[in-house]
């Protein structure tokens, strides 16, 4: 209940800053335009790349880029902000779980995108009989990505500034997540390794599922759950160790 309230508060604040929301959409649009324009030029000679013709490539890129609205890196800097503003101590004495409230915040922050995304989701996924599995993959991935970010956020205990990490994530995500190009146009052995990385699961794999060309959804769900657990335990361990240091400093 409390966590639902946290999520609702986040939705409200997101709606208050509609200008920001507009800017966010616009910047994503620029990024997508850039990627599409480049691939459009490549395809202009009428070639096909692996299984992709111009149309399927565009479909893939649009979907993966729309998906990327859901996977942003705010949770990664949450802890750093709490530490630097001195509010962590306040949070710690509250009867509330920091990891869960973070997840609630992130869910609230993304609620609008969920709603927007749901329409194409229903249209695309229904065509392919994977509807239920797709939804499960979607949800598991969301939690998995959050737990990865939460785990990384614990470096804030050892680092005075965490903001320089932000561009790294966008770089890694756009490359390993398959935002700039589908990972399966890479050489087969490279692809086979890359496809199981967490970024690929939320990006490439989900986009493929939605375009209806993925059969191992169950396997990917399992892997995603596995990642979630690992990141969660890593978070626990690092958070504990970090807290010791934090208390040691006596902030």
């Amino acid at each position, binding site marked *: 209940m409390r966590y639902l309230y946290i999520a609702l508060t986040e939705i409200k604040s997101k709606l208050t800053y509609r200008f*920001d929301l507009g800017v966010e959409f616009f910047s994503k649009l*620029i990024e997508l*335009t850039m990627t599409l324009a*480049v691939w459009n030029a490549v395809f202009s000679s009428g070639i096909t*790349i692996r299984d992709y013709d111009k149309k399927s490539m565009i479909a893939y890129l649009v979907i993966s880029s729309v998906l990327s609205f859901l996977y942003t890196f705010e949770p990664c800097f949450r802890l750093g902000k709490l530490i630097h503003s001195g509010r962590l101590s306040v949070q710690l004495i509250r009867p509330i779980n920091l990891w869960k409230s973070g997840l609630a915040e992130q869910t609230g922050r993304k609620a609008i995108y969920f709603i927007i995304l749901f329409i194409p989701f229903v249209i695309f996924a229904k065509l392919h009989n994977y509807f239920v599995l797709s939804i499960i993959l979607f949800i598991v991935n969301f939690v998995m990505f959050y737990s990865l970010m939460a785990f990384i956020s614990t470096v804030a205990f050892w680092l*005075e*500034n965490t903001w*320089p990490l932000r561009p790294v994530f966008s770089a890694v995500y*756009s*490359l390993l997540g398959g935002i700039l190009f589908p990972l399966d146009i890479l050489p087969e052995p490279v692809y086979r390794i890359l496809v199981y990385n967490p970024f690929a699961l939320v990006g490439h794999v989900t986009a493929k599922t939605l375009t209806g060309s993925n059969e191992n959804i169950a396997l990917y769900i399992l892997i995603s759950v596995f990642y979630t657990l690992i990141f969660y335990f890593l978070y626990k361990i690092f958070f504990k160790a970090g807290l010791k240091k934090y208390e040691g400093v006596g902030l």
Partner: protein
Amino acid sequence: MKKCIKLLNMFFKQSTEELLIYRSTAVITLIFSFMFFAVEIIFGFIVYSYSSELAGLNFNQYMNLIFTATLITNIYQFFFTVGHENLSDYIVEGELDYILIRPVNSYFYYAFNRQDIPSLINILVTTLALIYNNRLNTDINFSVIVFYIICILLSVWTLFLVNQIVVCVAFWKEKVNKLLGMPEYFYDASSRPLGVYPGFIRFILSYIIPFGIITNDSSLILTERFPLVHLIYIILWNIIITIISVIIWKKGLKHYASAN
């Protein structure tokens, strides 16, 4: 003039001192900026493994474009980024009061307020990458290099101006964080061959926010002739927008002073 040089010197010294305080942040930022560079290069390799030409550019020209665009960003980053980041904070948090009574030019005081020293390493690496990429290029002679450097410096100023104007929005609007990132998106989009874009986007990136010209045309100097018209256009654009941005700055300060 002497005062300006002394002040610049002082800013440089203070930037260095601050760098030493936030060493680990600086190192991380440095490493990560190289990852960006790597992503761009990998993307180039992938695209060119399926096509020998992209919008009229061959692989070498494409790499020149990427490296030139990166070099311009690196130099901008060195001179202005930290200053711009601080400035938007100062405006929003109301920390500009003291500059209003100082006998200095506030526009330039803030423009050159902080340098990002680690970017020097990025500049060096990007320059080496450019040299390597053009090791077999026979078109390069002394005048090409001079011309190229002039264009790069003009481009840095163009990039500065766009960011400066966006930062000034903070005088009138409170929540500007997301907006501050906009020029970067436009710039990234401009570090692709302009020819891949449909006409109207090309027009915007050439004449309205001329990032497309500064990246594409500057890099083409190394392999082809530079379209003189564009150079003149950029010079004019820079002069006019400099004047406009100074006016906006002054209006912003006035607005700042009268708002309580």
